[in-house]
């Protein structure tokens, strides 16, 4: 009985082996990528939005199976810190040039090339982020491309409205305020309607997280692709006399929702351009 089982198992294995050999995975032609931890340019970096957003984006990218991710966690390498060291060295060069009145080394050097990115946050398509830094990260993780993001704004208000009409009005008001004494600009805020609508209160609040996402070629430091997205979570409360429907209070869950939205939009932007071939052109 035992012998029969062994023979059967051997036969089954013999039949399966050729199939297993044929099913060996084809070479993965997807470019090798790593996701860098997002950088946070807002004043709220202490609440670690960058860490959470990076993790959420990582999970979505892994789920999509569209990228050959060489690491399954966002890389902790702080590109900003490396670039900061470079910037400090550059500032010393500024001082030397000012003291010697010899500007050639500074202005004709690599730091002032027109395609050199001023910082990681302002790096746009075609600009170069210091290649020695991106190359080292790429080589360490065997990655051809770095996916990197920057949180550029987070907060409450209506700034996130990227609809041109609403944005234009907001910008024009901001410009007018910036160029007008405050005593003038505040007049008329509480008009007669304020009193008439005293018994009904409709309040709306929300949290927006705006970020730039970019794809960098590790070998050259060239920025190949960028997109700006806004993750938004809003809530609304209506109060009629003593009765309140809904709540316009800001909460942790609203913040979490905004994070999820931002991560979703970052991933959507990446996937959409993978589909249309706009990513990995070079």
């Amino acid at each position, binding site marked *: 009985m035992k012998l029969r089982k062994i023979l059967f198992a051997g036969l089954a294995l013999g039949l399966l082996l050729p199939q297993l050999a044929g099913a060996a995975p084809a070479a993965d032609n997807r470019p090798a990528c790593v996701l860098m931890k997002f950088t946070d*340019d*807002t*004043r709220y970096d202490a609440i670690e939005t960058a860490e959470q957003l990076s993790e959420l984006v990582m999970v979505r990218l892994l789920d999509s199976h569209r990228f050959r991710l060489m690491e399954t966690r966002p890389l902790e390498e702080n590109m900003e810190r490396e670039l900061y060291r470079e910037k*400090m060295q*550059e*500032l*010393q060069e*500024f*001082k030397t*040039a*000012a003291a010697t*009145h*010899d*500007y050639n080394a*500074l*202005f*004709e050097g690599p*730091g*002032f090339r*027109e395609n*050199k*990115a*001023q*910082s990681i*946050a*302002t790096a*746009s398509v075609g600009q170069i982020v210091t290649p020695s830094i991106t190359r080292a990260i790429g080589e360490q993780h065997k990655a051809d491309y770095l996916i990197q993001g*920057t949180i*550029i*704004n*987070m*907060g409450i208000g209506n*700034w*996130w409205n*990227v609809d*041109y*009409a609403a*944005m*234009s*009005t907001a*910008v*024009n008001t*901001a*410009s*007018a*305020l*910036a*160029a*007008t*004494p*405050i005593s*003038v600009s505040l007049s008329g805020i509480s008009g007669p309607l304020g009193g008439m609508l005293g018994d009904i209160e409709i309040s709306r609040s929300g949290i927006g997280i*705006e970020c*730039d996402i970019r794809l960098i070629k590790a070998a050259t430091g060239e920025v190949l692709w960028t997109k700006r997205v806004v993750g938004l979570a809003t809530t609304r409360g209506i109060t009629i006399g003593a009765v309140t429907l809904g709540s316009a209070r800001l909460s942790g869950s609203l913040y979490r929702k905004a994070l999820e939205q931002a991560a979703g939009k970052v991933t959507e932007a990446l996937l959409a351009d993978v589909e249309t071939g706009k990513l990995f052109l070079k």
Partner: protein
Amino acid sequence: MKCLLVLLLLGLEILPASFGEAAALDRYRQILLEGRYTIEYHNITPAERVTNRDRVHLFGKTGLAVAQNDYLTNRPRKGMIVSRGEDRYEEVGDEEFAACRLTKGGEDFFFTKYKGKGGYEYFGTKKNQVTANNRNYLAEALEGKSYGDEDMSRIINALLSAGRPQGWAQVAAGTLAGGVTYEDYQGKSEDRTQIIRCYFTGGVLTKIAVAEFGADAAGNLTGHKCIIAVKAFTAAPREEYLSLPAKLADVTKRKEAKAK
């Protein structure tokens, strides 16, 4: 001895050629002083917005409110300044979107334009309408006139003050490969130092590179660099920009109108 004399004479000849003659930048300073010009530029390396604390500004400022504009944050941008005496037009943005200010008759009109399906669409206080604001003479007196974004405003105001104790002073001039000439300047204001190289192709200003540094309140060395590609800098104001676009109606309720 003869050789020394020749060298001395040569030296005397060379010096005026470098510093004694009018600098190529003087021509542009003169255009600015005359107040009739068109300047078009690209700010290739705008400074990043470090925090979003800059959203409230109580005392007014020169320069369009670029820092408060999320569309333009951290992006390379184009600018245009047109001047004909007291009438001015400024624009900062890119191909898709621009924040604009028209100054006319002592009033400021702030509006934005964006590229729609049928050409540019305009928004002031609402679509196709704009209301005038009083011109902020106080901000101008404190910070100088506005020239597009803050980088360009700082550069042009410094250029205008060249030769004064607080202004730019020329430190060198020369020629690079390809015949591009340059003039180097240095300026100091409060605790900040600016070093500037202006590039000229055939005597025409084509690029301004600025490195600025100084100590912050905590004594740390801070600074930033900026590259402005100058696309046009002429003494001919582009008149079409000195009135509101045809699509944009001025709906300001002025005191004179009320009196009637």
